[in-house]
């Protein structure tokens, strides 16, 4: 008679990312019912996402970071002992004793104890106000200490990957943040000199003070908190709070005490099936060394967990010994550190016979290096500031295929082209080891959003580095409506903008050839690309190929009306106009018999101009000191204002001067849609700034800045972005806001719906614009400065060149013939287009 064997007793020490992964893998393999599993964890909470630790400071709660599905432990009959670390292993009796004295017997023991932070044993390292950075408990302690009023300056010891994460945390806590690194540069393990230099520039720009080649000698304390760091041969650095993030060491103390074999530089020695020197004991993750190698990343840890789970499951289920082996892993990573993209593929430190391609842009603080061997195979890469090529470079690195034009690889792909390597076994998510085939399969089964794809495949739930690739696959594989601009581009406007900006494309033909999904182009994508080229290049928009791309209104620098005539709107900055200016406009209107109307934006619209009249009208206006008002463009329209403190008895600031300054700064800026602004001189808000894309309202102390307002079909009240700004801060904030909008918004998306669609809404905008959380501030300001410097009046520029005037005729073969379909009648002393019932007997 068949007898059910007693369940296999498995004790798992540690419930970190890798330890938990082992449990989920056992559950997936159906091994949990036949096993009696107990988990011992030192931390008081179950597994959480340690990779995303710094997001805790940005508002993600411990619950948000949890990796444990609700009910997981109960559903699988797993007993969990939290906050009670394992204290000793007795291999003779096959038991583990916890700190509280519990004794647990095991048939199989899995050590997933991870690593512990390395703290240099300098005097004062264990005093108050000194912390490590590894657990949520550490974060809570740091946040508590940082909230004390006497704590203003935080120093991170260690300029590696973790050190920069910790620096990010201190920045988010509002501390003046310093990073001290022993090596001459940041992230010395992963990056070469050029990459470190670019990273340093970006990090310093975020306000982090970087000190390299600093050997910390002591932490000196005063009044119960740190006072300064003392160095060897350098001035001391004042500090109120110290975080050690100088690397990690495998946590092998339990294993050593139990007499298990350890590696030369620490770590529990295991074979490729994760077995220690005692076959009943396994070790996985950062506590283990395989063939003398230590893997301090989550992806190889997950691979170890899967191998261990496969062998344990076979033992539980009585199935044949599986063939799963740990095959090692490269240490390629892509991260966002302080908002800066940093990636490395392979190692740039041990290369022989390789050629390096380096693209170093010190101005943009972007650095890319690719190393290929004599056979053209990718051996290593470093990407800082722009890691969009990571996916493709990693793909080639892992496949070992020769690359014909390595330079193209760097230029290639933001986002990576998923169709470039259609091999279904190719890896997409290295953390979760999900293949392209699995992702495409899930999409085919109806996963049409990133969230659905994550839930179905697990891809993108680790470090998140593959998310652009997933989005790319969603776009190309999904059968639903693609989110792209039109049938010619599967990319969105924002993606096109980034590609054109980073790759410096200058023509539509190039962009279409490179990223187009179909030949030709259309009335949707052509103006989109034309607008992006104009935003980035700031040059005349109607020369060469661009002539064929502009919307009809941009093409004629005027607004087409229902009868095919045009309206002409000269700029009247801030709505302020001299009597002479009024007279000049009046004379032009009279002489060309144009209909005039005051607009809502405080200027004057001249209607009824035939296309061949436009140059002569502009000539007169330009000669009278006017310029194009860009009423025809997706660009700044007007900055409306009140008379402010100059005249008004309530005004507290000179709103008119500020409006003129702003209008003359942002005029001509090509953007996803029109931009309207206003400046009010006091809180009575006569300029109606809270209904504008950018609204400025004077206060006693400066200016309040409102954004995202809208009138029109869907009115929206603007939201307050910043308060009491001085003139310089106001302009800097608007510079950044507008350029960020130009960079990110979809086509024909006003700031109102753009902000509504952003994850985090106006708070996100505030982080980027006011707090500079993405470190884009300088870049955005530089883009605006380039625009301001390159501005020219498009009418004057057109009048200067006869070749630019050729298009302004009604009929190319009969330039003197008027258009017979244009028929006016008079009403209230002015012209207007004839209605159809008035056309009887006219020219048609």
């Amino acid at each position: 008679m068949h007898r059910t064997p007693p369940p296999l007793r498995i004790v798992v020490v540690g419930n970190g990312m890798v330890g938990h992964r082992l449990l989920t893998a056992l559950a997936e393999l159906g091994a949990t019912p036949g096993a009696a599993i107990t988990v011992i964890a030192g931390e008081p909470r179950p597994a959480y996402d340690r990779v995303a630790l710094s997001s805790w400071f940005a508002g993600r709660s411990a619950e948000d970071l949890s990796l444990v599905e609700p009910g997981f432990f109960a559903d699988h009959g797993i007993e969990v002992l939290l906050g009670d670390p394992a204290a000793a292993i007795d291999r003779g009796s096959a038991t583990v004793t916890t700190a509280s004295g519990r004794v647990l017997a095991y048939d199989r023991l899995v050590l997933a104890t991870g690593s512990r932070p390395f703290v240099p044993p300098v005097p004062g390292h264990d005093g108050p106000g000194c912390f490590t950075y590894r657990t949520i408990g550490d974060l809570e302690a740091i946040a508590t200490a940082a909230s004390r009023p006497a704590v203003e300056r935080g120093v991170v010891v260690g300029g590696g990957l973790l050190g920069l994460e910790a620096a990010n945390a201190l920045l988010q806590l509002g501390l003046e943040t310093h990073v001290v690194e022993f090596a001459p540069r940041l992230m010395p393990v992963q990056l070469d000199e050029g990459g470190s230099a670019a990273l340093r520039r970006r990090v310093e720009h975020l306000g982090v003070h970087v000190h390299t080649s600093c050997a910390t000698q002591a932490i000196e304390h005063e009044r119960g908190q740190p006072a300064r760091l003392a160095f060897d041969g350098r001035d001391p650095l004042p500090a109120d709070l110290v975080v050690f993030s100088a690397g990690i060491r495998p946590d092998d103390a339990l294993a050593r005490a139990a007499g298990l074999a350890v590696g030369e530089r620490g770590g529990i020695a295991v074979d490729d099936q994760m077995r220690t020197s005692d076959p009943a004991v396994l070790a996985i993750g950062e506590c283990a060394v395989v063939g003398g190698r230590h893997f301090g990343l989550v992806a190889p840890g997950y691979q170890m967990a899967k191998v261990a789970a496969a062998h344990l499951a076979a033992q539980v289920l009585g199935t044949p010994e599986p063939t799963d082996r740990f095959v090692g892993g490269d240490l390629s990573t892509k991260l966002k550190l302080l908002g800066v993209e940093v990636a490395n593929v392979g190692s740039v430190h041990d290369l022989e016979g390789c050629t390096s391609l380096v693209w170093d842009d010190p101005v943009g603080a972007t650095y890319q290096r690719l190393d290929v061997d004599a056979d053209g195979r990718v051996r290593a890469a470093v990407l800082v500031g722009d890691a969009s090529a990571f996916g493709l470079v990693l793909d080639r690195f892992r496949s070992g295929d020769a690359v014909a034009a390595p330079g193209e690889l760097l230029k290639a792909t933001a986002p990576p082209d998923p169709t470039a390597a259609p091999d279904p076994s190719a890896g997409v998510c290295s953390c979760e080891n999900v293949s392209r085939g699995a992702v495409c399969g899930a999409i085919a089964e109806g996963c049409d959003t990133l969230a659905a794809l994550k839930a179905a495949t697990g891809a993108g739930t680790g470090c998140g580095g593959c998310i652009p690739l997933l989005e790319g696959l969603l776009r190309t594989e999904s059968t639903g409506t693609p989110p792209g601009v039109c049938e010619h581009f599967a990319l969105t406007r924002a993606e096109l903008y980034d590609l054109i900006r980073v790759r410096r494309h200058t023509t539509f033909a190039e962009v279409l050839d490179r990223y187009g999904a179909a030949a030709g182009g259309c009335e949707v994508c052509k103006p989109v690309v034309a607008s992006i080229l104009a935003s980035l290049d700031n040059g005349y928009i109607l020369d060469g190929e661009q002539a064929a791309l502009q919307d009809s209104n941009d093409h004629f620098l005027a607004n087409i009306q229902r009868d095919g005539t045009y309206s002409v709107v000269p700029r009247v900055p801030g709505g302020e106009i001299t009597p002479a200016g009024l007279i000049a406009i009046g004379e032009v209107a009279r002489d060309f018999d144009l209909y005039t109307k005051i607009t809502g934006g405080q200027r004057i619209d001249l209607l009824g101009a035939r296309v061949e009249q436009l140059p002569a009208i502009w000539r007169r206006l330009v000669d009278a000191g006017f310029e194009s008002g860009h009423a025809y463009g997706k660009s700044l329209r007007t900055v409306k204002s009140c008379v402010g403190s100059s005249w008004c008895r309530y005004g507290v600031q000179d709103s008119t001067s500020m409006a003129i300054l702003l209008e003359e700064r942002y005029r001509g800026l090509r953007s996803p849609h029109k931009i309207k602004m206003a400046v009010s001189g006091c809180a009575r808000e006569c300029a109606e700034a809270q209904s504008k894309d950018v609204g400025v309202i004077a206060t006693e102390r400066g200016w309040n800045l409102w954004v995202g307002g809208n009138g029109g079909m869907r009115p929206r009240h603007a939201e307050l972005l910043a308060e009491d700004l001085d003139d310089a801060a106001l302009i800097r904030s608007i510079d950044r806001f507008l350029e960020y909008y130009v960079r990110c918004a979809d086509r024909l998306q006003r700031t109102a719906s753009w902000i509504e669609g952003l994850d985090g809404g106006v708070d996100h905008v505030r982080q980027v614009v006011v707090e500079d959380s993405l470190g884009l501030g300088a870049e955005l300001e530089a883009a605006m400065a380039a625009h301001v410097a390159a501005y020219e009046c498009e009418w004057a520029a057109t009048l200067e060149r006869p070749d630019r005037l050729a298009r302004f005729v009604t009929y190319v073969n009969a330039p003197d013939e008027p258009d017979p379909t244009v028929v006016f009648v008079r009403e209230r002393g002015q012209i207007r287009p004839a209605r159809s019932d008035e056309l009887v007997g006219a020219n048609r």
Partner: protein
Amino acid sequence: MTLLDAERTTWTAVCPVAHLTPGRGAAVLVDGEALAVFLLADGSVRAIGNIDPCSGASVLSRGLVGHTEREGVTLRYVASPLRKQRFDLDTGCGLDADADAGSWPVRVVDGFVEVGRQASPWGNGPETAP
């Protein structure tokens, strides 16, 4: 289907092809009728009526040229600058609206664009004009 009789078609030169911008149109007057002539990226030319039948305004030459796939066939069209209705450049027929701008035979001879005098309501691309 009515084919044009090549013997009886009179051709009118309207402008040097060099005066046209690839991807854009220009309005020309032929026997008092306003036509929109387009130079495409491949160097070929098209002519349709300039009057946008949806608005009555003489504006189609000022629209943007686009490509679209319909049932496996690539159509070239112009989008009206007024309300963006699209008109097939080969036939003059509306793609979005039941409207017809009319099409004309057109060719390039010795660097000049020539338009055939007869309008064909059924549409005659350059391929069907012998």
